């Protein structure tokens, strides 16, 4: 019965490797076509790597009290008159090297940013999937909660959660738990965006034939949700996550600046800015300037990447 077979199709080329697919992809071409995006990508990568390898790059560990000497405090940057060549960007009032402090602070900021995005994303995607798939009362309930939360600015919610956590925890453990509390507070304040997008995509996907084919063979709803629908709704999530990362970092910086974030013993960029602000008007500008600059550059670069990703993944713009 060789009549059944269609003759080998000349266009049916052998499967390509992942690297080959990436190299040939529209995504890469779109990335490379915009200088701004490439610059943003490079800057982000540099900052990530610097933060990752901070212990090896920095001359000192600024948070080890043994290495800080008050005699070094308030030294201006090395390229300015009166500067100490050991401290490229100067020191703060505790004698900590600003350059090292920035890199360590970057670490903390990025860590909190990523963790809170992961947490918010997980909650948002989960609730969005359930809401879109189940419909009916479940959907209404979840979306009303989301709507209520959206009426409050995220910072306020983060502040609220932060305050509640601090009230609940013993003051002695406050410092250690600050990281966790911040991640939870920021993560919980941002889940709604993910949930709404995922819910919309889920509602579209659940009536498509491939989902019907899966229901036909009797797969459980959970199985269908996670192995069939989830991979198809992740596209917009990536864009939201990238822009959210920038927002999370800013939110953490704001909270730390307001004094409810990380303690000075484990400062993030925001804490550094707060510390530095006290010295701004007495002339030690470098303590606030360089961390602020780093924060601004990081957030800008991540935002630009997010913009590019959103446009590149938008099928309508193709």
């Amino acid at each position: 019965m060789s009549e059944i077979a269609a003759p080998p199709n000349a266009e049916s080329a052998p499967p390509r490797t992942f690297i080959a697919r990436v190299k040939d992809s529209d995504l890469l071409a779109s990335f490379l076509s915009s200088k701004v995006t490439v610059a943003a990508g490079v800057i982000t990568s540099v900052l990530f790597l610097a933060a990752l390898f901070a212990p090896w790059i920095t001359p000192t560990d600024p948070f080890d009290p043994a290495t800080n000497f008050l005699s070094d405090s308030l030294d201006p940057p090395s390229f300015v008159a009166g500067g100490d060549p050991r401290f490229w960007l100067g020191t703060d009032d505790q004698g900590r090297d600003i350059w090292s402090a920035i890199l360590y602070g970057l670490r903390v900021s990025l860590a909190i940013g990523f963790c809170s995005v992961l947490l918010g994303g997980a909650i948002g995607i989960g609730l969005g999937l359930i809401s879109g798939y189940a419909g009916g009362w479940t959907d209404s309930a979840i979306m009303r909660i989301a709507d209520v939360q959206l009426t409050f600015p995220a910072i306020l919610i983060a502040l609220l959660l932060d305050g509640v956590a601090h009230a609940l925890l013993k003051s002695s453990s406050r410092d250690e738990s600050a990281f966790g509390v911040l991640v939870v507070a920021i993560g919980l304040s941002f889940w709604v965006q993910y949930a709404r997008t995922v819910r919309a995509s889920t509602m579209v996907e659940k009536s498509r034939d491939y989902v019907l084919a899966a229901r036909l063979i009797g797969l459980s709803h959970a199985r269908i949700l996670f192995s069939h629908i989830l991979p198809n709704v992740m596209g917009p999530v990536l864009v939201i996550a990238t822009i959210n990362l920038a927002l999370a970092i800013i939110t953490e910086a704001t909270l730390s600046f307001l004094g409810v974030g990380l303690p000075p013993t484990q400062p993030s960029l925001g804490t550094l800015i707060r510390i530095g602000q006290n010295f701004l008007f007495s002339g030690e500008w470098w303590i606030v300037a360089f961390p602020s600059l780093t924060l601004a550059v990081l957030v800008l670069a991540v935002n630009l990447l997010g913009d590019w990703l959103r446009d590149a993944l938008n099928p309508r713009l193709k």
Partner: protein
Amino acid sequence: MTGALLSVRDLEVEFATRNGPLVALDRVSFEIAPGEVLGVVGESGAGKSLTGLAIIGLLDPPGRIAGGEIRLDGARIDNLPPARMREIRGRRIGIIFQDPLTSLNPLLRIGDQLSETILAHTSLTRRQARERAIAWLGEVGIPSPEKRIDGYPHEFSGGMRQRVVIALALCAEPALVIADEPTTALDVSVQAQIIAVLKNLTRRHGAAVMLITHDMGVIAETADRVAVMYAGRIVEIGEVGQVARKPLHPYAQGLMAAIPTLEARVDRLAQIPGAMPRLSAIPRGCAFAPRCPNAFGRCVERPPLLAVGARRAACWLYEEQQEPVLAEVPP
């Protein structure tokens, strides 16, 4: 040549891609006489819709006309500025697209859309335009047109909407109507009605029609002549009865044989092996050669449209002889 309403000569359309230009239409040539119905049939990817879009100047970048000429009543229209092309669209060339939902503005009443078009292309008053619109609705078979003229598109059924679209296309009395899959989105029993409306009205108003569709049945009912397209080229063109009953080109033969009919039940449908090549992989020479049961040495060179009596077929088999060659189709 002389007297042709629409003349397309060596039309080339290409798409600019990262890896170089892709040729989508490769030297397409045909003519439409005034009042004639030319069917353009082909499968998806053959380029029939693109041909229509190129003629009315609605090719979106990265597509562009890369060569050839399009003449309407002797004057070139492929190189006109967009403003001039807009005047021609509607006034001299009417357009009917497949989906009546997107052809009609859902926010405007039917009467308003018709009147606007009439006013834009004629010098009637508003009152006269409205009366003309009502008359048109009656002509396309909408019952109680004076009442329905103030309805919105969503208040009409699919078939009724497509009748309105036909009215819209004809209300400025164009000389040529380009219809791209006008019945594909409609139910079977409605298709026949819409085809009848299109045919009768264009005949009555003396408009020629370029009917683009994948449905050979629709063309058999409506067209005077038919052009069969494959991989961006015309492979056969001729009077519709002859092409439908005794096609010359092996692809046309395979296509006609593959269409199931209401005749007695057969054991197998004749099938053409393989599939139409993608734009990026069109073979050199005759595009159909890899799938052709009659391919021979000459086919490495692309055949032009050769005359076989009053018809033309792009196949080297007809270089010498003038009789149809039967394909080796399994019995």
